[in-house]
């Protein structure tokens, strides 16, 4: 600061005795929180924003979703028309990602595949969430015999050969994406329910729950107002991780020949198609594999970031 500056704003100020009044310490003001009050969500968001990797993953995810929506419209090709004169062509000006064994455009197919994989993954994850939260919530909340029986039931369901269930579903229902999602969710929710159960069991002996209970709150209120909202962190993390799990499970079904119906493709079924000849036509494997790995990666890192952000202990 220039000390000898004559244009200091306070240089000519007239001081009066009033200006030297004692202000003392205002006891009431000490209790006031100066920082703007933040909800748990805002707090988590602030922390998440600081996590560069997690934010990058979020951006990548948004980009992939956008591309899966728009991608197929950019190209003049569609995902099902064959061109037997141009099979297995490497990437070119015409076909940006090359062509496959029937001369279909890989660019369109890759984004269509991403679309199907994301739909399958998101839908399966959401259904898992709904069933898992309700089932797990009831198990954890009521405990005792109810819990024991419901827990055993989920354990048994978990042991039933998954392939049998899927084949039967494909026989009973039209083979479609809906059937695949159903097949994935029939045992997929169990993991979620176990996690919710564990959380609820921990939470329900906390003081605030006891307080609410002693004030006469009903089961519904306890479960939906107090317990579930507080278990939301682990639930959301499990949710972000179950999307890629569902995508992989669909890929595994494709490997067994029970996946989506051709010519519709998922990223998993495209990789599976390319598996026998990728040494000669690497682009057929490369683009869907990169995309599926990128999706897995982004969901995983974002899920991790979310866990850190939602866990107040890890500030």
């Amino acid at each position: 600061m220039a000390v000898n500056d004559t244009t200091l704003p306070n240089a000519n100020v007239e001081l009066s005795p009033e200006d030297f009044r004692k202000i003392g310490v205002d006891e009431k003001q000490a209790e006031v929180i100066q920082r703007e009050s933040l909800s748990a969500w805002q707090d988590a968001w602030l922390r998440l924003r600081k996590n560069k990797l997690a934010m990058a993953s979020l951006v990548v995810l948004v980009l992939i979703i956008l591309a899966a929506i728009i991608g197929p419209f950019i190209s003049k090709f569609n995902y099902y028309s064959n061109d037997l004169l141009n099979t297995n062509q490497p990437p070119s000006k015409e076909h940006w990602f090359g062509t496959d064994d029937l001369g279909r455009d890989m660019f369109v197919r890759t984004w269509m595949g991403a679309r199907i994989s994301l739909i399958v993954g998101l839908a399966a994850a959401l259904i898992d969430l709904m069933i898992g939260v309700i089932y797990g919530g009831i198990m954890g909340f009521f405990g005792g015999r109810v819990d024991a029986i419901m827990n055993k039931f989920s354990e048994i369901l978990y042991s039933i050969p998954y392939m049998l269930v899927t084949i039967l579903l494909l026989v009973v229902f039209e083979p479609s994406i809906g059937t695949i999602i159903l097949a994935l969710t029939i045992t997929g929710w169990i993991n979620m329910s176990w996690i919710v159960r564990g959380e609820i069991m921990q939470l329900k002996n906390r003081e605030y729950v006891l307080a609410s209970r002693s004030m006469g709150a009903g089961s519904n209120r306890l479960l939906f107002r107090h317990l579930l909202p507080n278990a939301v962190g682990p639930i959301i993390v499990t949710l972000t991780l179950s999307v890629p799990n569902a995508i992989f499970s669909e890929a595994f079904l494709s490997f067994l020949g029970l996946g989506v119906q051709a010519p519709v493709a998922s990223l998993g079924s495209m990789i599976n198609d390319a598996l026998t000849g990728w040494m000669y036509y690497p682009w057929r494997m490369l683009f869907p594999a990169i995309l599926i790995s990128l999706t897995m990666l982004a969901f995983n890192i974002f899920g991790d970031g979310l866990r850190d952000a939602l866990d107040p202990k890890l500030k």
Partner: protein
Amino acid sequence: MVRYVANKFFYMLVSLFILISATFFLMKAIPGDPFMSEKKVPPEIQARLMEQYGLDKPVYQQYFKYLGDIATGDFGISMKHQNQEVTGIILQTFSASLKIGLIAIVISVFIGVLLGMLAALYHRKLIDNVAMILAVLGIAVPSFVLASLIQFVFGEKLGWFNVMGFDGPLDYVLPVAALAAQPIAFIARLTRSSMLEVLHADYIKTAKAKGLNWFTIMFRHVIRNGILPVVTYIGPMTANIITGSVVIEQIFSIGGIGKVFVECITNRDYTMIMGVTIFYGILLMLARFITDIVYVLVDPRIKLTGGKEG
């Protein structure tokens, strides 16, 4: 303790019974029979086969007969692999899956914990990043891509290993590597986050303040507490891995139980399907049971009380 175990055992039997019933009727609901083939067998021979295997009877009769058989420990003869006992096939193929699985588990725990520890110790340093990139890759690459990749590179191109088969100790390398990739990644991440938590815990700070030797702190406190979550993860992971990976067993042509299970479903080999399902069910329940016991031994806060939660 005895009451606890007895109680658990009773529940296991009940679950097993429900599992058997559900699978039996599910299996019968699927079209097809063990004797189908592209060229159809004449109807009278088909009828004779169905009769000889008791498949001509109503499903509920078959069900009660099966329950009676397994109650006496008779799992029957495979309907596809005639003259071979179901238990014999299961034991033989399981031993292949078990060998590969156990090696993969040991290796993944070893490497996974190491990577995780390094990453935690060098938190936000280069080593941490490299270790975590490796870990995330292990999770992000589908196992059938990884398996066929290493098969091509190390088997076909470099010729270091056999492309397929299961004869010598070298034949273990590629399948074990493909099988261990995912658990390594998972364990590394698990170890890292729990070690980080422990490193910042108050008792570690206290120990440091007391001037305890660094090695003592590391081995007595940090590692011991840091790998606890890994220990609990090993239970379900073991059950998962030793039941055989269809993908790995198919690609490397290993006569394991995962591959056999898929084949017996395709063949509608009813006795085999039931046998493997029961076997898997018992394995899974045992794994959960042992995990429960281990929990109790490790964490004294959990008490053993029958069906009620503590």
